[in-house]
């Protein structure tokens, strides 16, 4: 029988979907007891920092460390050409085959950590030692603008990457579905435009650091990582450290959001820290203060879009030709009936910074935004109607999705229709939407509304071992995961408690430790629980059966439920009970303790494994949508965001409080990216001018009006209960939304993001 975990439903009254349950991490975070890598202190620990390049692109031609080494308190200096680190590289995620030197003798961008790592007794001594270095730099040609790097005759850059880019092209991606030329021919109108997306940053709140300690041949590390297995894997494969002799501990993480945690620099840091700790024979904390400003968005670029559309709004073809890291139309492909799509993106080498999946998905949600907005504008249509008209999947209309749902046991729901129904009602769309540029306000500003919708992601299944025991009445999840702010331990506890019939507070998960590398999530962010939930459900059911088997098992004094079979029993509120006689109960605690060997510490229950593999092709059934209201000051260029409504079809809501929090926070960040956030470079030197929290405009409590969050459940995910991940989705969804709202307010297109006052005034022809 085909495995169909989306047909599972959590038991009635279970913690799944329940509001008001206490966060597992609430007290530790409110009181400051929660530890982050920056807080870790190990006995005898030294500190390490690296040289930060003052140039966008330069080679170190001479490095004199004499004065630095002579500074009292400096313990070690590791140069890039030291055999202990020379040639060590780290792969980047999704960058093809390219690998980057962990410690290089040349810099790719301003503030790149290069050349040398200093180990000293304090952070301040590290800083002083770095200033005593006598460094001779040979400045090289640098390119901030991708177009300059790709121009004929451009100087090759990033040549130390392996394999090196050819003609300053790191990668080219091309996807073709259908026949766009035929689609354009079949269209009534052709719409062509270009949109731009500037640099913005993760601006993660916690400075990156990693702690490494060798105990003989065993390596302990404390990392700030969404996916600690990647570090383990690289240390094992590249440095020959046996996995069984590594204990990678994942602390809480400050403002991770993917991105920084995938950053190749982090894996490079881990390797350097391991080397340093081995050399000095003491624990080392390697600190990289500026890391939060080095992880930039993966949607920066110039996107040339062509759309073929019928007069009723049916989109026949879309093509994109971009200079960008990624292509923008993938989610349009997965979530619409548009039959013909072509996309090509050329990823240019540049000297801006590394970029990696920060609030990933933005490039494609921007693509959705721009396509629907331009089609609606061209035809004078409501963009929500355009989106619904083109709803479908992989070039097929929704009827095909309905057939897929019927064939595979899904509920027959059209997610987008339900999302729009809830969202438009909550937002007041009918009263607020109007034709572009037709609603001036009494305060002299122009009223506008914006909209975007895409598929939800992620709902993939990860084949990960899950393990749990029951000790002294508590289910203990043996896990390592990373805390991305969703209260992962609490969410896992909800699912396990639901499946086992245990009280939520009787399921514990201390997730920071390796525990033999049971990784509950890969990655640990928005998709972590979703990736793992099938495994949690199946293993929890196994654990429950083990408890019930103990309840009828013979023992000294007789079984707890004499004459009964497992099928006659169940568990509720951490009590085993007889189904036919619910007053006949025994606690899980007393049953398990009775079979615990040598006291209460040895669990008689040990359940582990993975779920069966989901074999049907994954389809993106669940959608989400955002609606924003703005007031545009056409004299000053300000766009005031006065209201936002977000609706997410989560498939199945595990933790509604956390989901709402992720929605709000995601929208807060996304709209900020749309309107304000950008990194500014000095074009003459390639220096970043706003790489700190004073000048980089992270939104505060005063920067946005109300954000109204709604959740619906259609159980359309290819996982247990049909759930989807959240958080990253909402940030990406709203990261270009002020552009659409500005157009509705003024009738003028602004396809240059972020929509800062200068860009607004330029679009209006005021400057």
């Amino acid at each position: 029988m085909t495995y169909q975990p989306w047909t599972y439903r959590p038991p009635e009254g279970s913690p799944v979907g329940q509001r008001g349950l206490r966060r597992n991490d609430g007290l530790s975070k409110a009181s400051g007891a929660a530890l982050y890598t920056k807080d870790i202190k190990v006995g005898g620990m030294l500190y390490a920092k690296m040289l930060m390049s003052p140039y966008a692109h330069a080679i170190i031609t001479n490095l004199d460390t004499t004065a630095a080494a002579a500074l009292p308190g400096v313990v070690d200096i590791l140069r890039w050409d030291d055999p202990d680190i020379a040639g060590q590289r780290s792969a980047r995620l999704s960058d093809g085959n390219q690998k980057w030197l962990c410690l290089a003798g040349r810099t790719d961008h301003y503030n790149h950590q290069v050349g040398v790592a200093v180990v000293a007794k304090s952070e301040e001594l590290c800083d002083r030692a770095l200033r005593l270095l006598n460094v001779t730099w040979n400045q090289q040609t640098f390119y901030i603008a991708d177009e300059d790097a790709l121009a004929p005759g451009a100087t090759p850059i990033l040549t130390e990457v392996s394999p090196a880019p050819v003609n300053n092209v790191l990668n080219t991606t091309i996807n073709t579905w259908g026949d766009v030329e035929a689609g354009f021919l079949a269209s009534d109108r052709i719409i062509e435009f270009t949109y731009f997306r500037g640099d913005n940053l993760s601006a993660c709140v916690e400075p990156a650091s990693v702690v490494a300690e060798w105990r003989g041949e065993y390596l302990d590390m404390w990392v700030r990582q969404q996916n600690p297995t990647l570090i383990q894997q690289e240390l094992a494969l590249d440095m020959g450290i046996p996995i069984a002799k590594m204990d990678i501990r994942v602390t809480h993480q400050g403002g991770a959001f993917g991105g920084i945690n995938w950053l190749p620099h982090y894996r490079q840091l881990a390797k350097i820290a391991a080397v340093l700790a081995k050399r000095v024979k003491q624990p080392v904390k390697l600190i990289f203060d500026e890391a939060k400003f080095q992880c930039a968005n993966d949607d920066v670029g110039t996107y040339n879009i062509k759309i073929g559309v019928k007069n009723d709004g049916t989109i026949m073809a879309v093509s994109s030709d971009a200079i960008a890291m990624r292509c923008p139309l993938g989610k349009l492909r997965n979530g619409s009936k548009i039959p013909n799509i072509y996309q090509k993106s050329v990823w240019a080498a540049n000297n801006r910074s590394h970029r990696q999946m920060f609030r990933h998905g933005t490039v494609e949600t921007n693509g959705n935004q721009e396509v629907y907005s331009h089609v609606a504008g061209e035809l004078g249509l409501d963009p929500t109607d355009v989106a619904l008209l083109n709803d479908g999947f992989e070039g097929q209309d929704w009827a095909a999705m309905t057939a897929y749902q019927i064939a595979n046991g899904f509920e027959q729901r059209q997610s987008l229709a339900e999302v729009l129904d809830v969202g438009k009602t909550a937002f007041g769309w009918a009263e607020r939407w109007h034709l572009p540029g037709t609603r001036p306000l009494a305060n002299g500003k122009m009223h506008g509304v914006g909209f975007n919708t895409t598929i939800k992601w992620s709902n993939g299944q990860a084949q990960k071992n899950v393990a749990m025991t029951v000790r002294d009445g508590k289910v203990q999840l043996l896990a390592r995961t990373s805390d991305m702010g969703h209260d992962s331990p609490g969410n896992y506890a909800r699912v396990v408690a639901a499946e086992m019939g245990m009280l939520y507070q009787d399921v514990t998960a201390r997730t920071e430790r390796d525990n033999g590398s049971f990784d509950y999530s890969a990655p640990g962010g928005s998709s972590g629980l979703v990736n793992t939930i099938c495994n949690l459900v199946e293993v929890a059911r196994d654990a429950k059966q083990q408890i019930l088997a103990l309840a009828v098992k013979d023992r000294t004094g007789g079984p707890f439920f004499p004459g009964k079979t497992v099928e006659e029993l169940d568990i509720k509120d951490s009590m085993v009970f007889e189904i036919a006689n619910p007053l006949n109960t025994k606690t899980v605690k007393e049953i398990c303790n009775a079979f615990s060997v040598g006291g209460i510490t040895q669990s008689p229950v040990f359940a582990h494994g993975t779920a069966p593999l989901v074999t049907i092709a994954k389809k993106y059934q669940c959608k989400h949508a955002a609606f924003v209201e703005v007031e545009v000051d056409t004299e000053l260029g300000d766009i005031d965001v006065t209201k936002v409504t977000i609706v997410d079809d989560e498939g199945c809501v595990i933790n509604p409080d956390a989901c709402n929090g992720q929605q709000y926070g995601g929208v807060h960040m996304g709209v900020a990216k749309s309107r304000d956030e950008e990194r500014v470079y000095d074009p003459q030197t390639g220096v970043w001018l706003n790489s700190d929290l004073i000048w980089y405009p992270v939104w505060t409590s005063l920067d946005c009006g109300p954000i109204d969050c709604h959740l619906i459940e259609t159980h359309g995910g290819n996982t247990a209960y049909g759930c989807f991940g959240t958080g990253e989705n909402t940030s990406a969804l709203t990261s270009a939304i002020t552009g659409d709202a500005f157009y509705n307010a003024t009738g003028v297109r602004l396809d240059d993001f972020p929509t800062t006052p200068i860009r607004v005034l330029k679009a209006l022809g005021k400057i």
Partner: protein
Amino acid sequence: MSEEEKKVPKTLSRREFLRDVGVAVSGTAVGSAFFLTASGKEVGAANAVTAVAPASAASSIALLGKPQPPPAPSAGVVSLTVNGKTYECAVENNTVLRDVLRDQIGLTSIKDMCTGYGACGSCAVIMNGRPILSCLALANECGGTVIETAEGMAKNNHPLIEAYIQNHCMQCGYCTPGLIVTAKALLDHIPHPTEAQIKEAISGNICRCGTYPAHVSAVLQVSTI
């Protein structure tokens, strides 16, 4: 661009500057009127933020709002009463309070988000009843002060701790201790703040996860007790 060999110009670090000129910078924040202004006056939501470096060390102590003994003339040992316990801490002229609290006393609630720029509020503590940014306070000018942190609030079962948990005021949690201290300072001064006052008060604390409305709910919940 022509190839040139250059040496990196030596620059004065911020700490070297502070050490050499012996100037104490009072706690100010970008974006919030609630953190202490140089005037030392009671701060309300309508007040504008000013960032002023006081003319002398003595006047900087006076800015903390209550009469203080003269500061120690040089580096040495400062006495700090933190969460009800007194510590004698060895400091240098350029040691900031944040580092003493974290590194010597071991209080991990005091975070370092903006690397000492005074931009984020994550290092906020309450000193002599006023919220300050500990990354901008020189430790040797804080001698004899009474300091409260999130750890102390938890130890004393301050109702904000439970309200924060109930209202899900945390996601990654990195900003949470700084925010809860700011919230306490607000309630200490304005026991029944409006929503606007709360938002203004916490606007000097950056939360990248966007938990702001939860903090408003938590403060309102406590303010009605």
